[in-house]
């Protein structure tokens, strides 16, 4: 059950008995060290709180840890996918009382998207700790060569540009792709979560809306039409494999960095990769174009990142809150972490961070994050099940194994609804 003891603010002064906090996180290697550095800052303020970092936890580890009653004071989870489940079941404690006792005004600290994906049905059981934002990467040299002035703002512009940018070999195979629309390509799964189409995941009664919201069908058709630009799914797949397949995403063989793709949907961290790999491309970043009938959304994008919460099994919730508060709201701390990890900082204060906002490439993503239309996909207690089902559907649709789109979307709707019931 939920812990109901009233939170007590931990004061920085006065005598304290030493406390050890167990912090589960998903970091490894370099990122772990970066986190440890920031926590070191925390320790300067709270010297009696010792933080024990338990790294490398996966999404499913937390549920297991909490259900098996392991004393976890703070949980740093890789994404928001399980937040609904945590909030609904009380696996993570409601932070409301803590926030209230600390007198924090959430809306003035965090952009709305971030608050949204860290809470469920009004329960704020976690807080954002850095985030990712997705936008458009485009190769300026290729744009110039194709006489395109700037990044496209609508999908029809985008399609036209993609067509212009694509070059074929004499044998019909792709030499340079304007864009690779495959669902399995790098980060495209997040694209097909449907934000540029303004899709509705769930109608007001909480039922899946894949069939009822026509924008989904529109998105599907669009993705199919994109395939046609490249002479079909198989041709693209072959191209994808030739340029190194999915694994190349995390190496210097990444297609955009090597100039094999002119436009790409990707997250903010790519800027750092391009820098570190010393890729010889002249590129720009922009929000991803929107559907022609959804231009009001331009400037927004999918956002979502690390969440941090206090599991119900925490032994020192008050000290844990002190740490959570520090990590999520201390501008300096957030800035430091964001710089180190090349992620988007999550508070208004830190978004002004000079170092990040001076980088023209990175700036795009800061603004995307700030955009009120930006969002993560809607959270449910079924966790990633709905998103997984959608991704699988897009994949199958593109591969041509969905004969009737409406029928398929209905089935998807049904599957997700049932899955929601299953996990609800």
């Amino acid at each position, binding site marked *: 059950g939920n812990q109901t003891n009233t939170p007590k603010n931990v004061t920085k002064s006065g005598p304290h008995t030493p406390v050890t906090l167990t912090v589960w996180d998903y970091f490894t290697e370099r990122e772990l060290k970066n986190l440890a550095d920031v926590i070191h800052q925390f320790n300067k303020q709270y010297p009696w709180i010792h933080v024990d970092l338990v790294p490398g936890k996966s999404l499913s580890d937390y549920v297991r*840890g909490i259900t098996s009653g392991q004393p976890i004071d703070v949980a740093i989870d890789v994404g928001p996918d399980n937040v609904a489940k945590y909030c609904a079941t009380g696996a993570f404690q409601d932070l409301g009382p803590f926030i209230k006792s600390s007198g924090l005004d959430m809306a003035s600290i965090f952009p709305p998207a971030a608050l949204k994906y860290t809470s469920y049905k009004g329960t704020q059981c976690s807080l954002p700790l850095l985030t990712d934002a997705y936008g458009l990467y485009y190769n300026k040299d290729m744009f110039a060569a194709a006489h395109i002035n700037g990044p496209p703002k609508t999908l029809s512009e985008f399609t036209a540009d993609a067509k212009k940018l694509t070059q074929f070999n004499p044998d019909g195979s792709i030499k340079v792709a304007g864009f690779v629309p495959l669902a399995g390509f790098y980060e495209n799964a997040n694209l097909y979560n449907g934000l540029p189409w303004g899709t509705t995941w769930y109608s007001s009664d909480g039922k899946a809306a894949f069939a009822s919201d026509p924008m989904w069908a529109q998105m599907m058709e669009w993705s199919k039409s994109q395939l046609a630009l490249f002479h079909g799914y198989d041709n693209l797949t072959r191209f994808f494999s030739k340029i190194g397949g999915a694994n190349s995403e995390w*190496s210097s063989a990444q297609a955009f960095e090597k100039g094999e793709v002119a436009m790409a949907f990707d997250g903010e961290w790519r800027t750092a990769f391009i820098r570190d790999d010393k890729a010889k491309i002249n590129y720009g970043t922009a929000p991803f174009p929107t559907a022609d009938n959804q231009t009001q959304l331009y400037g927004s994008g999918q956002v979502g990142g690390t969440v941090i919460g206090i599991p119900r099994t925490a032994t020192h919730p008050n000290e844990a809150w002190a740490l959570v508060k520090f990590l999520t709201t201390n501008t300096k701390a957030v800035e430091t972490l964001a710089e180190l990890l090349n992620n988007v900082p999550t508070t208004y204060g830190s978004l002004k961070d000079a170092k990040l906002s001076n980088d023209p490439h990175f700036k795009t993503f800061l603004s995307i994050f700030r955009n009120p239309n930006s969002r993560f996909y809607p959270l449910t207690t079924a966790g990633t099940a709905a998103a997984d089902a959608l991704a699988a559907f897009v994949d199958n649709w593109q591969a041509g194994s969905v004969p009737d789109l409406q029928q398929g979307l209905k089935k998807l709707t049904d599957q997700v609804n049932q899955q929601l019931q299953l996990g609800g």
Partner: protein
Amino acid sequence: MRQRPLPPEVRRQRFLMTVANHSMAIVLAVVFVTPFIFILATAVMTRQQALTGSFWPHPFVWGNFIKVFHFVPFARYAWNTVVYSVLATVGTVVSSIPVAYALSRMSWRGRQVAFLLVLATLALPSQVTIVPLYIIFVRIHWIGTLKPLILPTFFGDAFTIFLLRQFFMTIPEELSEAARVDGASEFQILTRVIVPLAKPAIMAVALFQFLYSWNDFFGPLVFANTHTWTLAVGLAEFSQVIHRSVLWNIQMAASVLFMLPIIILFFMAQRAFMEGVTLTGIKG
């Protein structure tokens, strides 16, 4: 003794036969060995070489084996693996021997039924029981430890019982009866006659259990956590991490370190392995 000269056509035919047989064998040997060579070679390559599909390391980066320890808590996983494997082996063997004995060398009502149950559990997918077991172990706070993996082995393992029983059945009944007439109790018959005679089979099942635990993936994946992961899970999870940085060389080095003890064990106890595997096959 002088060998009668064979007619040339007979000799030629035989020679061709031998060549054909050996060619087949060599082709198969190459198929079986090549992956090893690539894995070993890659384990000592630089990252770039490994990425570009080189065939031979240049230079040899033996340091990869050290680096493994930086990237993964290899030592801890190895220790967990050893603890799990050794205790599970001891538990399985010690608990299965008397059961196999009772199922093969003693006559009692219900023996056939019990044996059928043992056989049936052989076909029982572990997934059927893992959810409730998981819940039990959640309740007693054992998740994240190796205990859920080790404890059940002390209550007999169907496969081990089956194999030992099959072997015990081949020991002539007269030996036990001779001992019985000589004045031995059932326990003495088991320890003084059956166990010494079944040594090869016991060795084999011990090796099997050891291997099984060493390789076990699903069990530690479900029950253990990052601290208590065994090498199998540790390396698989590790592979996801290094996938991001595509460190094939480190990954192969880790794999080599993982398989090395087993390969060494195999060469030390090759006969027992082979005989044990054969034992599984007899009498289907």
